[in-house]
């Protein structure tokens, strides 16, 4: 079977303003009706979002929205567009879906150690990336040819720009923030484990003295139970950190390549290799 989803049209939503209250569902309904009248495909297959520096992927709102889309229409995707990378000359469009595992867990709504272990879930199994392929009709290709003829030679060549350090820096800032959060979470977990040890010690001592073990209330005084949402947030934070790590290492390695190229260019006396 051809497992391909074709995205043929899109329309933007109005930006939310505090003062005026726009009914989004109504807007979407009217827009879709008009599009249908002029024979535009009107099956809802997902949504798109701008995603500067890859920062939106693992937000809880994104997961929420995508979960809703995929629950309604299974094939839905979310398309991320990175304006910053694109401004540097490299069109950055990425399609993602929640994995079946993530959907299952979201449906159950329980993110505890047990459910995660049971389903063999890990943070890198939350989203799956769908390869994006650009496809156009023949008439559009004809038009593109025409436009190409009229385009200036150096248009769309921003990717040759050397000054990428600022972008790398901006990718690293949120990465550091994410790592801080990861550190907080690990600290919290360490404390949690310590306190659990403390409790079991106490229980053992009490048992030796012939007393009943600690009651629920007493335990709750020592440690707070992990909120389910908290664990999901930690999971997503891991996911985001991984994402940033990958992004920054790609940017860095590409920068290295550019550096060597520039070096090659600026050494005029090197004998030419053939």
């Amino acid at each position, binding site marked *: 079977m051809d497992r391909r989803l074709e995205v043929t049209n899109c329309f933007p939503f*109005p*930006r939310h303003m505090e003062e005026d209250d726009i009914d989004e569902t109504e*807007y979407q309904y009217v827009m879709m009706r008009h599009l249908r009248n002029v024979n535009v495909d009107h099956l809802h297959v997902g949504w798109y979002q701008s995603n500067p520096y890859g920062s939106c992927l693992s937000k809880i709102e994104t997961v929420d929205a995508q979960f809703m889309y995929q629950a309604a229409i299974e094939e839905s995707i979310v398309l991320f567009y990175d304006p910053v990378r694109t401004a540097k*000359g490299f069109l950055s469009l990425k399609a993602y879906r929640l994995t079946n595992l993530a959907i299952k867990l979201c449906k159950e709504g329980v993110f505890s150690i047990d459910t995660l272990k049971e389903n063999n879930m890990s943070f890198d199994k939350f989203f799956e990336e769908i390869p994006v392929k650009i496809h156009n009709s023949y008439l559009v290709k004809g038009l593109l040819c025409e436009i190409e003829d009229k*385009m200036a030679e150096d248009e769309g*060549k921003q990717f040759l720009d050397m000054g990428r350090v600022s972008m*790398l820096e901006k990718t690293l800032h949120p990465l550091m923030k994410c790592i801080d959060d990861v550190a907080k979470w690990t600290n919290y977990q360490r404390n949690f484990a310590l306190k659990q040890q403390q409790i079991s010690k106490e229980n053992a001592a009490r048992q030796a003295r012939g007393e009943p073990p600690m009651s629920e209330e007493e335990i709750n005084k020592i440690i707070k139970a992990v909120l389910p949402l908290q664990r999901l947030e930690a999971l997503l934070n891991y996911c985001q950190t991984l994402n940033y790590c990958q992004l920054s290492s790609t940017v860095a390695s590409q920068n290295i390549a550019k550096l060597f190229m520039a070096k090659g260019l600026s050494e005029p006396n090197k004998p030419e290799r053939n």
Partner: protein
Amino acid sequence: MALKLNLIVYIMSTLNVKIHPVVLLNIIDSYERRSRDQNRVIGTLLGNVDKSGTIEISNSFVVQHREADGEVAFDIEVAKDLYELHRKVNPNETIVGWFSTGGGEVNEYSVLIHEFYTRETSNPVHITVDPTPTGISVKGYTLTPFGVPGRSTGTMFSHIKSVSITGGYEAEMIGLKACMSASGIGEGKPITYESEIDMILAASKKCSDIITSIVKYIDENIISPGRPLPSNSNDIGRELMSMVESIGPLCKDEETTNKNLNDLLMVIYLSNLCKTQLMLNEKLTLV
């Protein structure tokens, strides 16, 4: 009709129209999606007019209509509705004209539709986009009154000479480039760039081709004996000089390059370390 248009061409050339490629793509798409019995698709063009009179068309939508027996049924309500919807998203765009595609040139129905747009905005432009055997022809028209003052007057469509179809935003043009290479325009086969390095590689190849052809030109026309120098040889020399100058100070300093390199390697190392750390941490906490 054709004769009149030709006469008026030079008078109207002050009007500048810049069309974003996205608009043309949308128009082509709407043409391909027309109903079976429909020849022509028309719609509204949205955009801006700047102080110097340049009309920038940045968005469009299709409006249903029917034309037969000298009458046009044009859904004004839908046109207004859609305009309101678009305004909610982008309040800066206003109606600047209308487009039609398929069905060839301007005809008697066009005048009727143009009248409606004249009520919506002053001096609307009319863009026709038509696939012809030689390519996609994009033409602009505007309405000019003519006749004897005080006596019989009329209006006619006159050709806008300066219609640029590459007036998009920067990101739009980058997207277009990606579409072009995905359709195999320029390289001869479809390419989707997986990473920036591939793009740089392709660009370098192209660059080296260009340099080869420059060198060839110079060899043949400028330094070969017995040939008169081309009149613009000074300009060519200046351009070449500035090109050479521009790569001069890039990486003269060995130390800076190395420092840069070290930083980048550090980033790669640390981010990989961080990845490993995450994996380990998860495995440990889930045990």
